């Protein structure tokens, strides 16, 4: 009896320790970024263009560049993910093709982001001759986050109990009507959750876009699809390479803080959307 109690308390303390460790890392990371970053942040920093390779001026073009790419990524990936999820859930009935589809989605999810970058460089920039283009960057980011969206949308479409499908079919509705009125609304919820989580990941990625979509300095807001932009993560990379210059380093912290705030914004809203739909 006593030993059982001891084991219980050892176990309880062990899991508590893991939790404290996890929370500690987070607090330490956020704490450092806010402490170092807030010194750099000002209205000018957020609204002025970069000067002197980032050591001076602001990051307005990096913010708009990142947001532009992410928005386009969202517009590209959302319908494709929704379609894939519905096809997987409602039309692929044979277990072998279901397995094959799942394997495809999971392996796409497992590909390291640098591979996407290299693929984009070879296929778009070199073979198709697009040059460095923010739009190509959005396409590549859309490919990268597609599995996150598909899985999230698929789970919510597939979790609609089959009695809803059957009841709607029994009322003489065509399969497409059932999908568009009963299943799509559900699938959209899941896809939005996946989208916010996917975007939170995509906005911080450096590797997929650094060769194909971004330039490090002297970039304005693009006016065509085939121009480069500046983006937050690649800007941090270039500032970190000038770390001997304290002004550049401080701006690297400031840019990091802006990026982290955006990521937290997207992922918490993803979480909120998920919670809201679970309640229904």
């Amino acid at each position, binding site marked *: 009896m006593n030993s059982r109690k001891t084991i219980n308390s050892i176990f309880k303390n062990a899991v508590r320790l893991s939790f404290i460790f996890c929370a500690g890392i987070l607090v330490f990371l956020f704490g450092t970024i806010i402490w170092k970053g807030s010194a750099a942040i000002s209205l000018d920093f957020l609204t002025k263009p970069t000067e002197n390779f980032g050591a001076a001026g602001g990051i307005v073009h990096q913010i708009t560049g990142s947001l532009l790419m992410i928005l386009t990524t969202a517009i590209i990936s959302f319908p494709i993910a929704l379609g894939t999820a519905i096809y997987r859930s409602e039309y692929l*009935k044979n277990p072998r093709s279901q397995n094959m589809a799942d394997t495809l989605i999971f392996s796409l999810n497992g590909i390291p982001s640098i591979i996407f970058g290299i693929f984009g460089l070879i296929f778009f920039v070199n073979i198709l001759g697009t040059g460095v283009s923010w739009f190509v960057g959005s396409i590549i980011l859309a490919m990268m986050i597609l599995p996150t969206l598909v899985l999230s949308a698929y789970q919510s479409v597939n979790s609609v109990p089959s009695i*809803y499908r*059957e*009841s*709607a079919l*029994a*009322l*003489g*509705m065509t399969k497409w009507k059932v999908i568009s009125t009963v299943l799509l609304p559900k699938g959209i919820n899941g896809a939005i959750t996946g989208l916010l989580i996917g975007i939170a990941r995509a906005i911080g990625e450096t590797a997929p876009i650094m060769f194909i979509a971004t330039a490090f300095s002297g970039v304005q807001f693009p006016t065509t699809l085939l121009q480069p932009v500046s983006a937050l993560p690649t800007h941090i990379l270039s500032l970190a390479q000038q770390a001997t210059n304290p002004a550049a380093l401080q701006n690297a912290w400031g840019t990091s803080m802006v990026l982290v705030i955006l990521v937290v914004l997207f992922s918490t809203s993803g979480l909120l959307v998920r919670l809201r739909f679970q309640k*229904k």
Partner: protein
Amino acid sequence: MIQEVNSELKDSSVVTKLEAPVLNVSGLDVFINKTNILKDINLQVPRNQITCIIGPSGSGKSTLIRSINRINDDVLGYEKQGDIHFQNASIFKKNIDVASLRKNIGMVFQKPCVFPKSIAENVLFGIQHSKKLSKIEKAEIVEKQLKAAALWDEVSQRLDQRGSSLSIGQQQRLCISRTLAMEPQVILLDEPTSSLDPVSSRAIEKMMLDLKEQYTIVFVTHNIQQAKRIADRVVFMCEGEIIEQGTTNEIFTKSKHPKTRSYLVDEYCDC
């Protein structure tokens, strides 16, 4: 009273002979994953009568009625042999429009399934997709069909509330009125009262008796007493076969088959 029942029985059997059955199942065999679930089913469903299908759990009652509106088509590994005729045309004909078949053969399931919409929208859920309706027509349909399903008095003041706010028994009647709104020829009901309390069950039974004036009803039930109360014809199934069928009177008073008799007495059948 007895005379009345007798004359009613006579009337209905005359009608049966004169008019072709609405549904005619002939030599139907159903396999799911190569397992023979239904064996050589032959069944005729006369118009404007209640045909009750009874039998122990797993005997294939649901599979049979789910074949009639072809909702089983989507079940993985479903295969069938034989034929089902609805108003003299095969429901398995090549180019048949399954959606419009289902508009004519409605179905109510065991568990009520309301859509996450208002009570009124639930009544209109099916019909508004097959017909353009004006606001007035919609309001008329909602009132008429909720009345037909004996639900109007309880919900007329709260038509905009969510369907899920109703009690389970009310939800089942809402599902019935949703099916009635399609104005089908045949209504298939798969144990619609098995998740309901006795009062709601009786309300639905009474409703069935009113509805058979207009509709042809196929009613699956576990409950022998219920079949006795509402059925014109009774079909007894066991292990995927029809053991015996006939008018309610024939089955309950002069059943020929020992299995039927033992099921009616003990609700048990060692088939």
